[in-house]
């Protein structure tokens, strides 16, 4: 079985701060990490491989520094890592990104054979659109299962897979056929502490670079110029002040306090 995981390198959101004067993110000195959802996609792929045997490939589109994320993926048990990196990709929106990743995936298929399951995170913690995975699946014209929280069953003979996915009212179980595309939630698994042999193999592995020279990619579909999404305006939501904590001892006293003060407070705020 061949599994291909799409991963994105993102700034560690827990360490990004906003410059409230300029409204921009302070990215300086913020470490880059694998998008947390994508780590679960890698883990799931490796688990499936361990159970059914096969190989796991991983691809990211990004600048050369994204190599560190690929190294980390390798140390989690991934077999092949590809960095899709070229100046023409700069400024790509989700449409252009999913086009480039699709082209990159086709190159990997050429090298390593057909892919049975494609995996990605449900969304990136910086872009947050959740469009990239679906964009790639659409280009491949294969079944897409989003927000997966469990893989219940895989039947290699029938080439089917049963997936539990989150929906607004709960969860549903879906059966589909290979090849398919799955985007995953964090609940799908717990990331294990990788065994030492994986780390040793990762340290030895080399990362393959894909670009417009060695991969069939139409440059006129990439980059800022060819991205229909236009950022019209960016603004920073106002910093929310911490609310006042009201605790008057007992529940009754607290309620009495609220009852007595709510009207005047709302008036002060100009709400009534």
């Amino acid at each position, binding site marked *: 079985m061949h599994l291909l995981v799409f991963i994105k390198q993102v700034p560690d959101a827990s360490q990004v701060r906003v410059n409230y004067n300029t409204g921009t993110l302070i990215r300086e000195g913020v470490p880059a990490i694998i998008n947390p959802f994508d780590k679960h996609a890698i883990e799931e792929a490796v688990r499936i491989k361990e159970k059914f045997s096969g190989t796991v490939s991983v691809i990211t589109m990004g600048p050369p520094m994204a190599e560190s994320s690929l190294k980390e993926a390798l140390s989690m048990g991934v077999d092949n890592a590809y960095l899709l990196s070229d100046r023409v990709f700069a400024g790509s929106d989700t449409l252009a990104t999913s086009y480039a990743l699709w082209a990159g995936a086709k190159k990997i298929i050429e090298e390593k054979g057909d892919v049975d399951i494609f995996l990605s995170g449900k969304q990136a913690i910086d872009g947050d659109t959740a469009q990239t995975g679906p964009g790639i699946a659409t280009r491949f014209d294969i079944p897409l299962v989003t927000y997966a929280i469990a893989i219940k069953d895989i039947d290699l003979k029938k080439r089917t897979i049963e997936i539990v996915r989150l929906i607004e009212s709960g969860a549903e179980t879906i059966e589909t056929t290979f090849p398919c595309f799955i985007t995953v939630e964090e609940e799908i698994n717990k990331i*294990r*502490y*990788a*065994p*030492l*042999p994986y*780390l*040793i193999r990762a*340290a*030895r592995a080399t990362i393959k670079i894909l670009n417009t020279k060695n991969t069939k990619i139409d440059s006129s579909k990439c980059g800022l110029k060819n991205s229909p999404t236009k950022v019209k305006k960016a603004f920073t939501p106002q910093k929310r002040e911490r609310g006042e904590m009201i605790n008057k001892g007992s529940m009754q006293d607290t309620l009495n306090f609220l009852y007595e003060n709510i009207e005047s407070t709302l008036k002060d705020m100009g709400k009534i």
Partner: protein
Amino acid sequence: MKRKDFDVIIVGAGPSGLAAGFVLAKAGVNTIIIERGKFPGSKNVMGGIFYTKAMDDLIPEFYKEAPVERHIIEQNLWFMDDVSHLGVSFKSQKYNSEPFNSFSVFRAKFDRWFAKKVEQMGALIINETVVTQPIVEGGKVVGVKTDRPDGDLYADVVIGADGVNSFLAKQLGLRNKIKPNIVALAVKEVIGLDKEKINDRFQLRSDKEGAAYEMTGPFLDGMEGMAWLYTNSSSISIGVGVVIQDLIEHKTNPNDLLEKIKAHPSVAPLIEGGQTKEYLAHMIPEGGYYATPKLFTDGFLTTGDAIMFVNNVNREGSNLAIESGKLAAKTYLEAKQTGDFSSKSLSRYQDKIRKSFACKDLSMYKNMPKLLEEKRYFLTKYPQFFIDFVYDWFSVDGVSKPDKIKKAKKEFGDKFGYVNFAKDLYAIWRYMIR
């Protein structure tokens, strides 16, 4: 057949482990380095003064490529009381020429760069993995256990380059528990400051030139310790290290001591307006020559801070770590020729260490910890006397200079006694040449 995954396993990717790895990999030895930090240097957020020689021998002109801050052209030694300092200063244009005597560096950046070089030579570096214990079979070290699943590794030789707390040397019974009187606790801060301000305040002519200060004396309240300050490109490193025993006895917190130094009238203007960027506390082995544990056993060598190969008097540690790492690697290469990795064969390491310049230095200073423990007033009363004398000498207060000398002579006699002073001079002399 006996299991063997690598020729050599090195525990710890500090300067000593990396240097050993560099030499081994260069010689084609199948080498793995295991580091518990996220990357080499990550556990070492701060910087230091790095003497170039040992590294320049390994990678000629490394400083042209490595992340270094400033090369040091001025050294100062200050004896301070609470309101004054009496100093010796040496600045020379000779320090402005390659290969430069020393640099200020940030270890997190520097070690990471060094690690890249070691990887390029062909050694494997595995991060975020803790070695939990040596694997000993038939009295011989044959590998290590790590905290990872499937985490055992086997090799001909294990090199313990795991730093001052060396867990491996302890588990193998090569060293005793470290006593608090031979370990210092150091606290350090990095204070961000504009390049131009640093150049002005320290009278440096470019962003590449740097200055270093060592400070000791009565302001440490009779404790054995040393404070230091030096310039990075756009920050100042400042810190103080005090023997742990003294901190306990004086019930002093090293943080308070550092605050006191930062507020000292001679120091405060140098760092004024700066922003504290990083803070760190760490142990430094102070034991010197006598504290050196056993350096080897069957299938095992140990290097750097783990063997207390640190010369605190001259602030040398990382360069000596590199030196010992190189010697350990050379010992392996010699032993490999006969395939004998027994304790007897590896004992060549001890000879190499003994013959090294560093060991001769350590030997020269070997009685210093004891001397300072016995004669603590070397750091307190003597400097205080000279500070007071110099103050008096430069003060124009109606007393003639000859009278000042007369008064000082008498005071000195009363305070210390000339016979005692002669004895102390003799003690220092004896300790220096022995």
